[in-house]
């Protein structure tokens, strides 16, 4: 999982607003170069991306497809990889008869038992599986302890309240700190591995 949060741990304001992020996924990449590299390398380590139904409907696929058309952009390597990598949308209601922005060419719908399906994906041979959001999908993955590694990018802003991704956990989840890094743009990376026992 790679996700952006505020200092107080929110991934969005109560209404879903994320315009407080230093880089709000736009075409102008306002992160320090070193952080861009971390993000690109992490994305390149994956050969499967999980997205939420809402992200599929709101245009995640089309957005990065469009960004990958400009090969001069610093975003190109990331956007191109996201575009060609198979995406998995977990949904029990969505079907491919419903058109989504960017189309279904690189995306599959998976339905049924959430935990079983995710574990099945994880047990297949291949590289890493990556998830960036959204809030409900990530919360469910965290609750079921299905995320192995957390890359939390802390923006230098406190929101006061908002959407949390850990609020559904029943017991505390202990982690091992793999590394932390600070970047000149003000972001801090906290990289953790979930302790499973």
């Amino acid at each position, binding site marked *: 999982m790679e996700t952006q949060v505020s*200092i*107080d*741990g*929110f991934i969005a304001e109560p209404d879903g607003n994320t315009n*407080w992020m230093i880089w709000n996924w736009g075409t102008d990449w306002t992160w320090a170069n070193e952080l861009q590299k971390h993000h690109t390398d992490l994305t390149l380590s994956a050969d499967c991306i999980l997205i939420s139904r809402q992200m599929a409907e709101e245009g995640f696929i089309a957005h990065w497809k469009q960004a990958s058309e400009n090969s001069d952009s610093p975003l190109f390597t990331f956007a191109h990889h996201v575009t060609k990598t198979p995406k998995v949308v977990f949904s029990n209601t969505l079907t491919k008869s419903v058109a989504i922005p960017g189309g279904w060419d690189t995306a599959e719908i998976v339905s049924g038992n959430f935990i079983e399906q995710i574990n099945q994906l994880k047990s297949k041979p291949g590289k890493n599986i990556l998830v960036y959001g959204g809030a409900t999908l990530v919360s469910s993955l*965290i609750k079921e302890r299905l995320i192995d590694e*957390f890359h*939390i990018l*802390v923006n*230098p*802003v*406190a*929101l*006061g*309240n908002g959407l*949390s*991704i*850990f*609020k*559904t*956990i*029943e*017991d*505390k*989840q*202990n*982690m*091992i*700190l793999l*590394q*932390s*890094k*600070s970047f000149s743009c*003000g*972001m*801090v990376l*906290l990289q*953790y591995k979930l302790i499973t026992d």
Partner: protein
Amino acid sequence: MRKLKLQVQISIDGYIAGVNGELDWITWSLDKAILKYISDLNKDIDCILMGRVLAEGFIPHWKEEATDPTKKRDFVKEMSEAYDFAKKMHETKKVVFTKSLKDSTWENAVLATGDLATEIMTLKNKPGGDIIAYGGAAFVSSLIKTGLIDEFHLFVNPVAIGKGMAIFKELDSKQDFNLVRATSFECGIVVIHYQPKRN
């Protein structure tokens, strides 16, 4: 003007205590480097701010640690450092913010009963060393809202606790910060040091 610093233990998901004040998620086995960080952070402090709730536990605890002769095992170096720290916590002047208490029965502690921001400004304008706050949640939330904290030192513990007491929830609007640095320690804690952006 004296600087006001905040030093708090916080979970990955932004809580400084569990719903009922639990602190069992905090990493207590600290490595030498983080103890040095804490010691440096507190070196120029001569005033500790706290709410009444924290004071009731904090002040008697450090008094006992600092005055109980069985704790003065200064022949062991580590114990001696712990004792020095206890002594500092006991002897440093405390200002306890309360609306309910009338008189302080504690040593080295005075009460502040007026408007929080006014009281803090008065303290900051006095000559002296720096001022620090460690908690608790209600007091720190009010303190953050005043906008008078100059340095935030958030000790991010490697654990998510799901729900608990937050400290930024009283903000009326977003508060931007400048990142000073983030330091990771062997014990698993990352200390993130921020300064608030002021207009």
